[in-house]
C-alpha cells in the first residue's frame, strides 16, 4: 500500500465506494501520477510564467444581458425526483447536530 496516497480519504471526499481491487488499482495509478509530478518538480522553472490554462487566451467575457433559457421545466422532468417546481433530494441539513 502506498505511503504517499491516503486512498480512503480521497475516496471519501469524492463520495466513492471502492471495491478492494479498485482500491489497489487506483492507489497504484495515483502513485505513478505523483511519481511523474515529482519528476517534473526537478525542472528549474524560475524563468517560466505559471500557467493555469492550456489555451493562450485571456479576458473572454460576456456582456451583462439576460438570455431566457426556458430549460427549467424540461430539466425538472428528467430529475430522478421532483415535487411541484422543485428538485427533491434526500434530507441533508447542514449543521444539524
Amino acid at each position, binding site marked *: 500500500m502506498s505511503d504517499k496516497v491516503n486512498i480512503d*480519504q480521497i475516496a*471519501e*471526499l469524492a*463520495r466513492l465506494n471502492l471495491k478492494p481491487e479498485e482500491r489497489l488499482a487506483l492507489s497504484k495509478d495515483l502513485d505513478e501520477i505523483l511519481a511523474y509530478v515529482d519528476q517534473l518538480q526537478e525542472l528549474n522553472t524560475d524563468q517560466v510564467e505559471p500557467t*493555469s*490554462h*492550456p*489555451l493562450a*487566451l*485571456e*479576458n*473572454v*467575457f*460576456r*456582456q*451583462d*444581458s*439576460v*438570455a*431566457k*433559457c426556458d*430549460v*427549467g*421545466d424540461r*430539466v*425538472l422532468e428528467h430529475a430522478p*425526483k421532483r*415535487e*411541484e*417546481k*422543485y*428538485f*427533491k*433530494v*434526500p*434530507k*441533508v*441539513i*447542514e*449543521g444539524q*447536530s
Partner: protein
Amino acid sequence: MSQYEPVIGLEVHVQLKTKSKLFCGCSTEFGAEPNQNTCPVCLGLPGSLPVLNKTALDLAIKVGLALESGISKRIKFDRKNYFYPDLPKAYQISQYDMPVCHNGHLIIEVRKNGDELTQKKIRMNRAHLEEDAGKLLHEGIQDGSWVDYNRAGIPLLEVVSEPDLCSPEEAFEYLVRLKAIFQYLNVSDCNMEEGSLRCDANISVREKGDTRLGTKVEIKNMNSFRAVQKALAFEFERQVAVLEKRERLVQETRLWNEARGETLSMRSKEFAHDYRYFPEPDLVPFSVPAAHIAELKASLPELPRARYERFRPQYGLSAYDAHVLVSEKALADYFEACVNKGVSPKLASNWIQSELLGELNQRKLKLSESRVTPHALAGLIRLIEQETISGKIAKEVLPLMFETGQSAEAIVEAKGWVQVTDTTLLEEVAERVIRANPKPADDVRAGKKQAVGFLVGQVMKETKGKANPKLINEILERKLKALR
C-alpha cells in the same frame, strides 16, 4: 474575565447588482418561480461552458478601489469542491490564490474612553468573486428536501477582513461602514432579507497583551448586523468560560440560533473542509488593463468618508450628526436635498434624525417610501425659521403631513395654527393677564425675574399655544416696567 480580549475577522458576501448571473445569461431577479431562472450552465449540465459577466468583474473592482485595495494583475477562477445538494455541479466556482482584490482597508470610528470617537483602520485581506449556491427548503417537506436553483450562479463578492476587530461593537460598526460603501457605489441592493448581504464571523480569544492567536471558531447563520454583534458577544463569553475552566477550545464551525440566543456546534467531520481547490479549466484567466482600472476609479462616486469630511465644515455639523447622516446614502441625500431648499443645516439634521426617522419608524416605512419629501420637510422647517409656527406646533404638523400628504403651509393654514405675532393682539392679552394676576405681576416688578415665566404661560394658554414666546416676553417686560 477582563484579562481576555476577542480577535475577530469577518467574511461578508454581497450580491452584486447585475441583470444576469455570473457565468450565464439567466436572470438574477428575486422572487421568480422555482427553478425557472436556470440553464445548462448554472444547472451544471454536461457540455455547457461558463463565461464571465464583465459587469460583475467591474463591480468587484469598484469595491476594491473604494477599499483602497490592489487589483490583481492576474485574476483566475478555481473550483471549490464539496458535496451538498445546493450545488448542482458538486463544486462552486470561486477564487483561491488570484482573487480580484487584495490588501485593502476600511476606516471605522470606535469609541475610546467615553464618548470620544477615534478612527481605526481595519485591513482587508482580499475580495473575490464567486457564484452563489441554490436554496434548500426543509420545512414541512416529507422525507426529503426541495431545491431551487434560481440563486445558483448569482454573482457574489466575498470581502474578507483581517482579524483586526477587537469587540462585537467594532464588528457591527465595520459592517455598517462596509454596507454604506456598497450602497454609495450602487453595486448591491444590500437587502439582508433577500440574502443579498450575508456575514460569517471568525473569533478567537487571547489574554490581553498576548500576540499569538487563540483557537479560531467560525460562526454562521446570522441574519442581521445586530445578530452578528450578539453572536460574537455570546461566543466571546463562551470561549472565555471554556478557558477559565482550563479546558481546550476546538476549532469548529458553530451556528447562531437567534431564538435561543446562543451558538451551537455543527459537529462536522474534521476533513469536511478539505475543498481540494484546483484551477477552473472552463474559464480562461483575466488581466485588467491599467487604463480600464483608471476609468473605473474615475467613475467612483463620492464615498461615505469623503462625504463625512465635507459635511462637517460645509454644514457645521457635529462629528456624531455627520456620521449618522452619511451612514446611509439615502439619508445623506435626503439631508442635502432638504438643505438645498435653503433651510438651516443644523435644524434639518435634528428634524431628520429625531422627528422624521421617528415617524417613519412608527409607520414601518423606509426613507425611500416617505410621503414627506425633502422639499416638504424643508417647507415645515422654514415655517419654524420664519417663526410662523413654534417647534412644538411643528411636531404636530409633521404626522399630519404623513397622513394627508399636504404641505406644512396648507396644514398650518387650515388648522389656524399660525403663530400669533400680531403685537396689538398680544398686548391686549398681556394686559388682561397682568390684571388677572396681580401677585406674580408685583413679584416681577419687585425684581423676581423668574415670576415672568408664569405670566408668559398664561398668555400662551389664552392664545392656545400660538403666541410667539419671545414676543410675549418682550411685551410683558415692557408693560410691567411702564406700570411701575
